[in-house]
Protein backbone atom coordinates (compact mmCIF):
# COMPACT_ATOMS: atom_id res chain seq x y z
CA UNK A 1 0.00 0.00 0.00
CA UNK A 2 2.77 2.35 1.05
CA UNK A 3 4.67 1.48 -2.05
CA UNK A 4 1.70 2.27 -4.25
CA UNK A 5 1.31 5.60 -2.52
CA UNK A 6 4.88 6.56 -3.32
CA UNK A 7 4.61 5.33 -6.89
CA UNK A 8 1.59 7.53 -7.39
CA UNK A 9 3.67 10.56 -6.44
CA UNK A 10 6.45 9.45 -8.74
CA UNK A 11 4.04 9.23 -11.66
CA UNK A 12 3.08 12.84 -10.97
CA UNK A 13 6.63 13.68 -11.82
CA UNK A 14 8.47 16.98 -11.95
CA UNK A 15 6.32 18.87 -14.44
CA UNK A 16 8.41 22.02 -14.71
CA UNK A 17 11.59 20.80 -13.14
CA UNK A 18 13.83 22.41 -15.74
CA UNK A 19 14.35 26.03 -16.75
CA UNK A 20 13.67 25.22 -20.39
CA UNK A 21 10.15 26.54 -20.52
CA UNK A 22 9.66 26.12 -24.24
CA UNK A 23 10.17 22.38 -24.43
CA UNK A 24 7.59 21.99 -21.69
CA UNK A 25 5.02 23.53 -24.00
CA UNK A 26 5.09 20.64 -26.43
CA UNK A 27 1.58 19.98 -27.50
CA UNK A 28 -0.15 16.96 -26.06
CA UNK A 29 -1.12 14.69 -28.95
CA UNK A 30 -4.36 15.92 -30.45
CA UNK A 31 -6.28 14.57 -33.42
CA UNK A 32 -5.91 16.61 -36.57
CA UNK A 33 -7.49 16.00 -39.96
CA UNK A 34 -5.11 15.55 -42.87
CA UNK A 35 -5.78 18.31 -45.39
CA UNK A 36 -5.09 18.78 -49.10
CA UNK A 37 -4.71 15.15 -50.09
CA UNK A 38 -5.15 16.49 -53.63
CA UNK A 39 -5.12 20.02 -55.06
CA UNK A 40 -8.43 19.76 -56.82
CA UNK A 41 -11.75 17.95 -56.92
CA UNK A 42 -10.50 16.13 -60.03
CA UNK A 43 -7.45 13.92 -60.23
CA UNK A 44 -7.41 13.91 -64.04
CA UNK A 45 -10.56 12.61 -65.73
CA UNK A 46 -12.17 11.43 -62.53
CA UNK A 47 -12.84 12.79 -59.08
CA UNK A 48 -10.64 12.93 -56.01
CA UNK A 49 -11.83 12.67 -52.40
CA UNK A 50 -11.61 16.47 -52.18
CA UNK A 51 -14.76 18.53 -51.78
CA UNK A 52 -15.35 22.23 -52.38
CA UNK A 53 -15.05 24.24 -49.17
CA UNK A 54 -18.27 25.50 -47.59
CA UNK A 55 -19.92 28.40 -49.48
CA UNK A 56 -17.30 28.33 -52.21
CA UNK A 57 -18.21 28.12 -55.86
CA UNK A 58 -15.78 26.53 -58.25
CA UNK A 59 -16.04 27.45 -61.92
CA UNK A 60 -14.30 24.79 -63.95
CA UNK A 61 -13.52 25.08 -67.65
CA UNK A 62 -12.15 21.93 -69.23
CA UNK A 63 -10.92 21.28 -72.75
CA UNK A 64 -9.91 18.21 -74.70
CA UNK A 65 -8.26 18.56 -78.06
CA UNK A 66 -8.29 16.00 -80.83
CA UNK A 67 -5.75 13.18 -80.97
CA UNK A 68 -2.11 14.24 -81.03
CA UNK A 69 -1.33 11.55 -83.64
CA UNK A 70 -3.53 13.32 -86.20
CA UNK A 71 -0.27 15.00 -87.07
CA UNK A 72 0.88 18.37 -88.28
CA UNK A 73 -2.05 18.91 -90.70
CA UNK A 74 -4.41 19.01 -87.73
CA UNK A 75 -1.81 20.84 -85.63
CA UNK A 76 -1.48 17.71 -83.49
CA UNK A 77 -5.15 17.77 -82.58
CA UNK A 78 -5.25 21.40 -81.50
CA UNK A 79 -7.44 22.40 -84.49
CA UNK A 80 -10.44 20.81 -82.82
CA UNK A 81 -11.49 21.14 -79.20
CA UNK A 82 -14.38 20.15 -77.00
CA UNK A 83 -15.39 21.90 -73.81
CA UNK A 84 -17.05 21.11 -70.53
CA UNK A 85 -18.22 24.04 -68.42
CA UNK A 86 -18.95 23.24 -64.80
CA UNK A 87 -20.16 24.92 -61.64
CA UNK A 88 -19.56 23.20 -58.34
CA UNK A 89 -20.70 24.44 -54.95
CA UNK A 90 -19.73 23.52 -51.40
CA UNK A 91 -23.00 23.12 -49.49
CA UNK A 92 -20.82 22.51 -46.47
CA UNK A 93 -17.22 21.39 -46.07
CA UNK A 94 -18.20 17.76 -46.65
CA UNK A 95 -20.88 18.00 -49.32
CA UNK A 96 -20.44 19.25 -52.88
CA UNK A 97 -22.98 19.58 -55.67
CA UNK A 98 -21.91 20.10 -59.26
CA UNK A 99 -23.45 20.58 -62.68
CA UNK A 100 -21.88 20.71 -66.12
CA UNK A 101 -22.43 20.86 -69.83
CA UNK A 102 -20.25 19.11 -72.39
CA UNK A 103 -19.79 19.74 -76.10
CA UNK A 104 -19.74 15.99 -76.62
CA UNK A 105 -23.31 14.81 -77.35
CA UNK A 106 -24.51 18.05 -75.68
CA UNK A 107 -24.50 16.12 -72.41
CA UNK A 108 -25.68 17.68 -69.19
CA UNK A 109 -24.25 16.21 -66.03
CA UNK A 110 -24.60 16.56 -62.31
CA UNK A 111 -22.93 15.05 -59.31
CA UNK A 112 -23.16 14.88 -55.56
CA UNK A 113 -20.09 14.11 -53.50
CA UNK A 114 -20.02 13.52 -49.75
CA UNK A 115 -16.89 13.18 -47.70
CA UNK A 116 -17.74 10.42 -45.25
CA UNK A 117 -14.61 10.21 -43.15
CA UNK A 118 -11.30 12.05 -43.06
CA UNK A 119 -7.80 10.78 -42.67
CA UNK A 120 -6.56 11.96 -39.29
CA UNK A 121 -3.31 11.90 -37.42
CA UNK A 122 -2.48 12.38 -33.78
CA UNK A 123 -3.98 10.61 -30.82
CA UNK A 124 -6.84 9.06 -32.78
CA UNK A 125 -5.46 8.47 -36.24
CA UNK A 126 -7.39 7.08 -39.19
CA UNK A 127 -5.52 5.94 -42.31
CA UNK A 128 -7.74 7.11 -45.19
CA UNK A 129 -10.21 9.69 -46.39
CA UNK A 130 -13.36 8.20 -47.92
CA UNK A 131 -15.83 10.06 -50.11
CA UNK A 132 -18.92 8.77 -51.87
CA UNK A 133 -19.75 10.11 -55.32
CA UNK A 134 -22.82 9.76 -57.50
CA UNK A 135 -22.96 11.12 -61.05
CA UNK A 136 -25.76 11.34 -63.59
CA UNK A 137 -25.44 12.32 -67.23
CA UNK A 138 -28.31 13.26 -69.51
CA UNK A 139 -28.23 13.22 -73.29
CA UNK A 140 -30.77 15.93 -74.21
CA UNK A 141 -30.33 15.79 -77.99
CA UNK A 142 -33.28 15.98 -80.32
CA UNK A 143 -33.58 13.37 -83.11
CA UNK A 144 -32.28 15.94 -85.60
CA UNK A 145 -29.15 16.33 -83.48
CA UNK A 146 -28.52 12.60 -83.39
CA UNK A 147 -30.53 11.77 -80.27
CA UNK A 148 -32.53 8.66 -81.14
CA UNK A 149 -34.08 7.19 -77.99
CA UNK A 150 -37.02 4.84 -77.60
CA UNK A 151 -37.72 5.76 -73.98
CA UNK A 152 -36.56 8.71 -71.91
CA UNK A 153 -34.57 6.57 -69.46
CA UNK A 154 -32.22 5.63 -72.31
CA UNK A 155 -30.87 9.16 -72.16
CA UNK A 156 -29.51 8.64 -68.65
CA UNK A 157 -26.21 7.11 -67.57
CA UNK A 158 -25.23 7.12 -63.94
CA UNK A 159 -22.29 6.03 -61.84
CA UNK A 160 -21.57 5.40 -58.18
CA UNK A 161 -18.10 5.56 -56.68
CA UNK A 162 -16.32 5.10 -53.44
CA UNK A 163 -13.19 7.23 -53.36
CA UNK A 164 -10.63 6.00 -50.86
CA UNK A 165 -7.46 8.05 -50.56
CA UNK A 166 -4.44 8.20 -48.36
CA UNK A 167 -1.99 11.08 -48.13
CA UNK A 168 1.00 8.83 -47.61
CA UNK A 169 3.38 11.73 -47.24
CA UNK A 170 3.40 15.46 -47.85
CA UNK A 171 4.25 14.81 -51.49
CA UNK A 172 2.60 11.47 -52.26
CA UNK A 173 -1.11 10.64 -52.24
CA UNK A 174 -2.79 7.48 -53.51
CA UNK A 175 -6.44 6.83 -54.32
CA UNK A 176 -8.57 3.78 -55.09
CA UNK A 177 -11.95 4.12 -56.77
CA UNK A 178 -14.36 1.13 -56.74
CA UNK A 179 -17.05 2.06 -59.24
CA UNK A 180 -20.39 0.85 -60.60
CA UNK A 181 -21.73 2.23 -63.88
CA UNK A 182 -25.48 2.22 -64.52
CA UNK A 183 -26.50 2.51 -68.13
CA UNK A 184 -29.50 1.57 -70.24
CA UNK A 185 -29.12 -2.00 -71.36
CA UNK A 186 -28.21 -2.07 -75.06
CA UNK A 187 -29.94 -5.48 -75.47
CA UNK A 188 -32.95 -5.28 -73.12
CA UNK A 189 -34.80 -2.00 -73.79
CA UNK A 190 -35.98 -0.19 -70.68
CA UNK A 191 -33.63 -2.08 -68.38
CA UNK A 192 -30.51 -0.91 -66.60
CA UNK A 193 -27.19 -2.64 -66.99
CA UNK A 194 -24.61 -2.46 -64.19
CA UNK A 195 -20.95 -2.48 -65.22
CA UNK A 196 -18.26 -2.86 -62.56
CA UNK A 197 -15.13 -0.78 -62.70
CA UNK A 198 -12.26 0.15 -60.44
CA UNK A 199 -9.81 3.01 -60.69
CA UNK A 200 -6.44 3.73 -59.18
CA UNK A 201 -4.59 7.01 -59.18
CA UNK A 202 -2.12 9.15 -57.37
CA UNK A 203 -0.14 12.32 -57.28
CA UNK A 204 3.48 13.17 -56.67
CA UNK A 205 4.10 16.73 -55.57
CA UNK A 206 7.51 17.94 -56.64
CA UNK A 207 7.26 21.44 -55.25
CA UNK A 208 4.79 23.44 -53.18
CA UNK A 209 2.51 24.20 -56.09
CA UNK A 210 3.00 21.51 -58.71
CA UNK A 211 2.32 17.82 -58.88
CA UNK A 212 2.38 15.00 -61.42
CA UNK A 213 -0.82 12.97 -61.47
CA UNK A 214 -1.67 9.55 -62.92
CA UNK A 215 -4.99 7.76 -63.15
CA UNK A 216 -6.27 4.49 -64.59
CA UNK A 217 -9.72 2.92 -64.59
CA UNK A 218 -10.33 -0.72 -65.31
CA UNK A 219 -13.80 -1.20 -66.77
CA UNK A 220 -15.41 -4.57 -67.41
CA UNK A 221 -15.04 -4.35 -71.20
CA UNK A 222 -16.82 -7.68 -71.79
CA UNK A 223 -20.06 -6.22 -70.47
CA UNK A 224 -19.41 -2.80 -71.92
CA UNK A 225 -18.89 -3.99 -75.50
CA UNK A 226 -22.22 -5.87 -75.70
CA UNK A 227 -24.36 -4.24 -78.34
CA UNK A 228 -21.84 -1.48 -79.08
CA UNK A 229 -20.71 -0.78 -82.63
CA UNK A 230 -17.15 0.16 -81.63
CA UNK A 231 -14.44 -1.20 -79.34
CA UNK A 232 -13.90 0.58 -76.03
CA UNK A 233 -10.80 0.89 -73.88
CA UNK A 234 -9.88 1.54 -70.28
CA UNK A 235 -9.23 5.24 -69.70
CA UNK A 236 -5.74 6.20 -68.66
CA UNK A 237 -4.42 9.67 -67.97
CA UNK A 238 -1.22 11.45 -67.02
CA UNK A 239 -0.98 15.09 -66.12
CA UNK A 240 0.34 18.06 -64.26
CA UNK A 241 -1.38 20.21 -61.59
CA UNK A 242 -0.29 23.81 -61.14
CA UNK A 243 -1.86 25.68 -58.23
CA UNK A 244 -1.60 29.44 -57.92
CA UNK A 245 -3.88 30.26 -54.99
CA UNK A 246 -7.53 30.29 -56.01
CA UNK A 247 -6.72 28.91 -59.46
CA UNK A 248 -5.74 25.35 -60.31
CA UNK A 249 -4.46 24.59 -63.81
CA UNK A 250 -4.47 20.96 -64.83
CA UNK A 251 -2.72 19.72 -67.95
CA UNK A 252 -3.69 16.25 -69.10
CA UNK A 253 -2.73 13.60 -71.61
CA UNK A 254 -5.35 10.89 -71.97
CA UNK A 255 -6.88 8.40 -74.38
CA UNK A 256 -10.36 9.68 -73.50
CA UNK A 257 -12.08 12.48 -75.36
CA UNK A 258 -14.86 12.85 -72.81
CA UNK A 259 -14.56 14.64 -69.48
CA UNK A 260 -17.40 13.19 -67.43
CA UNK A 261 -17.76 9.74 -65.88
CA UNK A 262 -20.24 8.49 -68.47
CA UNK A 263 -17.95 9.49 -71.31
CA UNK A 264 -14.54 8.42 -70.11
CA UNK A 265 -15.71 5.19 -68.50
CA UNK A 266 -18.10 3.92 -71.20
CA UNK A 267 -17.16 5.80 -74.39
CA UNK A 268 -13.36 5.73 -74.56
CA UNK A 269 -13.18 4.28 -78.05
CA UNK A 270 -14.44 4.96 -81.57
CA UNK A 271 -14.80 8.69 -82.17
CA UNK A 272 -14.32 9.48 -78.49
CA UNK A 273 -10.90 8.11 -77.77
CA UNK A 274 -8.70 5.17 -78.42
CA UNK A 275 -5.72 3.14 -77.50
CA UNK A 276 -3.18 4.99 -75.44
CA UNK A 277 -0.38 2.63 -76.47
CA UNK A 278 -1.08 3.30 -80.17
CA UNK A 279 -0.74 7.02 -79.61
CA UNK A 280 -4.43 7.86 -79.59
CA UNK A 281 -3.73 10.52 -77.01
CA UNK A 282 -5.65 13.72 -76.45
CA UNK A 283 -4.11 16.77 -74.88
CA UNK A 284 -6.35 18.83 -72.66
CA UNK A 285 -6.46 21.23 -69.77
CA UNK A 286 -8.73 22.45 -67.04
CA UNK A 287 -8.80 25.78 -65.29
CA UNK A 288 -10.65 25.97 -62.06
CA UNK A 289 -11.32 29.25 -60.29
CA UNK A 290 -12.81 29.28 -56.81
CA UNK A 291 -15.03 32.13 -55.65
CA UNK A 292 -15.81 32.63 -51.99
CA UNK A 293 -19.23 33.64 -50.69
CA UNK A 294 -18.02 33.74 -47.12
CA UNK A 295 -18.00 37.42 -46.49
Amino acid sequence: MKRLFILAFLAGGPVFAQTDLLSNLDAEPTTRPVTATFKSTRLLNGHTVETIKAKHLDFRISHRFDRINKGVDEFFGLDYATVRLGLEYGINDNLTFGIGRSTIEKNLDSYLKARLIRQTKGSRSFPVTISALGTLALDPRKPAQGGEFKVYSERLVGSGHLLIARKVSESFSLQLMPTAIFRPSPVKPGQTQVIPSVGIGGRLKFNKRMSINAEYYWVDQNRLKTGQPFATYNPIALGLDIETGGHVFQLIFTNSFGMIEKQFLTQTGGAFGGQFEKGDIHFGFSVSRTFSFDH
Partner: protein
Amino acid sequence: MNLRTLLLVAVPALAMNITASAQVLSASKGESKFFSETPLENIAAANSKVKAALNPATNQLAVKMAMTDFEFPNKLMQEHFNENYIESEKYPNASFEGTINEKIDWKKPGTYPVTAKGMFEIHGVKQPRTLTGKLTIEPGKITLVSDFIVALEAHKIEVPKLVMMKIAEQIKVQNKVEFANKG
Protein backbone atom coordinates in the same frame (compact mmCIF):
# COMPACT_ATOMS: atom_id res chain seq x y z
CA MET B 1 14.11 -1.44 -5.96
CA ASN B 2 13.57 -1.36 -2.23
CA LEU B 3 11.54 1.11 -0.31
CA ARG B 4 14.51 3.23 0.69
CA THR B 5 15.75 3.85 -2.85
CA LEU B 6 12.22 4.59 -3.93
CA LEU B 7 11.93 7.21 -1.24
CA LEU B 8 15.33 8.56 -2.17
CA VAL B 9 14.08 9.23 -5.71
CA ALA B 10 10.52 10.09 -4.92
CA VAL B 11 11.00 12.72 -2.25
CA PRO B 12 13.25 15.09 -4.24
CA ALA B 13 11.08 14.59 -7.33
CA LEU B 14 8.01 15.42 -5.37
CA ALA B 15 9.65 18.45 -3.82
CA MET B 16 10.69 19.75 -7.24
CA ASN B 17 7.22 19.15 -8.50
CA ILE B 18 5.68 21.29 -5.79
CA THR B 19 8.17 24.15 -5.93
CA ALA B 20 8.36 24.24 -9.71
CA SER B 21 4.63 24.24 -10.25
CA ALA B 22 4.29 26.99 -7.70
CA GLN B 23 6.75 29.08 -9.68
CA VAL B 24 5.84 28.53 -13.28
CA LEU B 25 2.54 29.82 -14.58
CA SER B 26 1.14 28.22 -17.66
CA ALA B 27 -1.65 28.93 -20.10
CA SER B 28 -3.07 26.93 -22.97
CA LYS B 29 -5.87 29.14 -24.29
CA GLY B 30 -3.94 32.19 -25.34
CA GLU B 31 -4.98 34.08 -28.46
CA SER B 32 -2.99 35.05 -31.47
CA LYS B 33 -4.45 36.93 -34.41
CA PHE B 34 -2.80 38.08 -37.57
CA PHE B 35 -3.77 40.57 -40.22
CA SER B 36 -2.57 41.01 -43.75
CA GLU B 37 -3.88 44.24 -45.21
CA THR B 38 -3.51 45.31 -48.82
CA PRO B 39 -5.68 47.50 -51.05
CA LEU B 40 -6.87 44.35 -52.83
CA GLU B 41 -7.58 41.97 -49.99
CA ASN B 42 -7.64 41.79 -46.21
CA ILE B 43 -6.84 38.47 -44.61
CA ALA B 44 -7.30 37.69 -40.93
CA ALA B 45 -6.95 34.52 -38.91
CA ALA B 46 -7.05 33.59 -35.25
CA ASN B 47 -5.51 30.92 -33.06
CA SER B 48 -7.13 30.43 -29.66
CA LYS B 49 -4.97 27.51 -28.52
CA VAL B 50 -1.74 29.37 -27.85
CA LYS B 51 0.35 27.79 -25.11
CA ALA B 52 2.53 29.86 -22.83
CA ALA B 53 4.64 29.52 -19.72
CA LEU B 54 5.91 32.27 -17.43
CA ASN B 55 8.38 31.99 -14.59
CA PRO B 56 7.98 35.08 -12.36
CA ALA B 57 11.09 34.13 -10.37
CA THR B 58 13.36 34.40 -13.41
CA ASN B 59 11.18 36.55 -15.75
CA GLN B 60 11.47 33.77 -18.32
CA LEU B 61 8.70 33.54 -20.89
CA ALA B 62 7.86 30.96 -23.54
CA VAL B 63 5.02 30.98 -26.08
CA LYS B 64 4.21 28.29 -28.59
CA MET B 65 1.41 27.73 -31.08
CA ALA B 66 0.53 25.19 -33.74
CA MET B 67 0.14 26.67 -37.23
CA THR B 68 -2.76 24.33 -38.00
CA ASP B 69 -4.71 25.88 -35.11
CA PHE B 70 -5.10 29.14 -37.04
CA GLU B 71 -8.73 29.42 -38.09
CA PHE B 72 -9.59 31.42 -41.20
CA PRO B 73 -13.14 32.44 -42.07
CA ASN B 74 -12.25 31.28 -45.57
CA LYS B 75 -11.26 27.60 -45.47
CA LEU B 76 -9.57 27.69 -48.86
CA MET B 77 -7.26 30.41 -47.55
CA GLN B 78 -6.62 28.24 -44.51
CA GLU B 79 -5.59 25.36 -46.75
CA HIS B 80 -3.32 27.62 -48.80
CA PHE B 81 -1.81 29.10 -45.62
CA ASN B 82 -0.86 25.63 -44.36
CA GLU B 83 0.08 24.12 -47.70
CA ASN B 84 1.78 26.89 -49.63
CA TYR B 85 2.97 29.60 -47.30
CA ILE B 86 3.68 28.42 -43.78
CA GLU B 87 4.25 24.74 -44.74
CA SER B 88 2.86 23.49 -41.45
CA GLU B 89 3.75 19.88 -42.22
CA LYS B 90 7.45 20.83 -42.21
CA TYR B 91 7.27 23.66 -39.68
CA PRO B 92 4.35 22.87 -37.38
CA ASN B 93 4.89 25.56 -34.71
CA ALA B 94 5.75 29.17 -34.12
CA SER B 95 7.38 30.07 -30.82
CA PHE B 96 8.97 32.78 -28.74
CA GLU B 97 11.37 32.07 -25.92
CA GLY B 98 12.86 34.92 -23.97
CA THR B 99 13.15 36.97 -20.82
CA ILE B 100 11.22 40.01 -19.68
CA ASN B 101 13.76 42.83 -19.26
CA GLU B 102 11.96 44.91 -16.61
CA LYS B 103 11.96 44.18 -12.90
CA ILE B 104 8.39 43.32 -12.01
CA ASP B 105 6.84 43.12 -8.59
CA TRP B 106 4.58 40.20 -9.31
CA LYS B 107 2.64 40.73 -6.10
CA LYS B 108 1.59 44.29 -6.95
CA PRO B 109 -1.49 44.75 -9.13
CA GLY B 110 -1.15 47.20 -11.98
CA THR B 111 -0.35 47.58 -15.66
CA TYR B 112 3.27 47.68 -16.75
CA PRO B 113 4.82 48.28 -20.16
CA VAL B 114 7.30 45.49 -20.75
CA THR B 115 9.87 44.35 -23.27
CA ALA B 116 11.04 40.80 -23.77
CA LYS B 117 14.26 39.83 -25.48
CA GLY B 118 14.51 36.42 -27.00
CA MET B 119 14.23 34.18 -30.02
CA PHE B 120 11.19 34.23 -32.29
CA GLU B 121 10.70 31.29 -34.63
CA ILE B 122 8.24 30.79 -37.46
CA HIS B 123 8.52 28.81 -40.73
CA GLY B 124 11.67 27.20 -39.32
CA VAL B 125 13.56 30.51 -39.27
CA LYS B 126 14.76 31.85 -35.92
CA GLN B 127 15.24 35.56 -35.37
CA PRO B 128 16.43 37.39 -32.26
CA ARG B 129 13.69 39.87 -31.39
CA THR B 130 12.84 42.31 -28.63
CA LEU B 131 9.07 42.39 -28.36
CA THR B 132 7.15 45.11 -26.59
CA GLY B 133 3.96 44.54 -24.70
CA LYS B 134 1.84 45.24 -21.72
CA LEU B 135 1.63 43.23 -18.52
CA THR B 136 -1.44 43.50 -16.32
CA ILE B 137 -1.33 42.01 -12.85
CA GLU B 138 -4.67 41.49 -11.15
CA PRO B 139 -5.50 39.51 -8.03
CA GLY B 140 -6.74 36.48 -9.97
CA LYS B 141 -4.77 36.66 -13.19
CA ILE B 142 -1.79 37.98 -15.08
CA THR B 143 -2.43 39.14 -18.64
CA LEU B 144 0.29 39.62 -21.20
CA VAL B 145 -0.47 41.46 -24.43
CA SER B 146 1.94 42.03 -27.28
CA ASP B 147 1.56 43.30 -30.83
CA PHE B 148 4.35 42.94 -33.31
CA ILE B 149 5.13 42.63 -36.99
CA VAL B 150 6.32 39.53 -38.83
CA ALA B 151 8.17 40.28 -42.04
CA LEU B 152 7.53 37.42 -44.46
CA GLU B 153 10.88 37.80 -46.19
CA ALA B 154 12.85 37.58 -42.93
CA HIS B 155 11.31 34.16 -42.31
CA LYS B 156 11.61 32.91 -45.88
CA ILE B 157 7.84 32.76 -46.40
CA GLU B 158 7.53 33.03 -50.16
CA VAL B 159 4.69 34.79 -51.92
CA PRO B 160 4.41 34.10 -55.66
CA LYS B 161 4.44 37.15 -57.92
CA LEU B 162 0.89 36.43 -59.11
CA VAL B 163 -0.61 37.05 -55.68
CA MET B 164 1.96 39.52 -54.39
CA MET B 165 -0.55 42.37 -54.53
CA LYS B 166 -2.96 40.47 -52.28
CA ILE B 167 -0.66 39.56 -49.42
CA ALA B 168 1.10 42.11 -47.22
CA GLU B 169 4.84 41.78 -46.76
CA GLN B 170 4.50 42.86 -43.15
CA ILE B 171 1.99 40.84 -41.17
CA LYS B 172 0.52 42.40 -38.02
CA VAL B 173 0.24 39.98 -35.13
CA GLN B 174 -1.74 40.53 -31.92
CA ASN B 175 -1.20 38.24 -28.97
CA LYS B 176 -2.91 37.89 -25.62
CA VAL B 177 -2.19 35.33 -22.93
CA GLU B 178 -3.84 35.03 -19.53
CA PHE B 179 -2.18 33.21 -16.65
CA ALA B 180 -4.03 32.29 -13.50
CA ASN B 181 -2.36 34.24 -10.70
CA LYS B 182 -1.97 31.98 -7.69
CA GLY B 183 0.61 34.14 -5.89
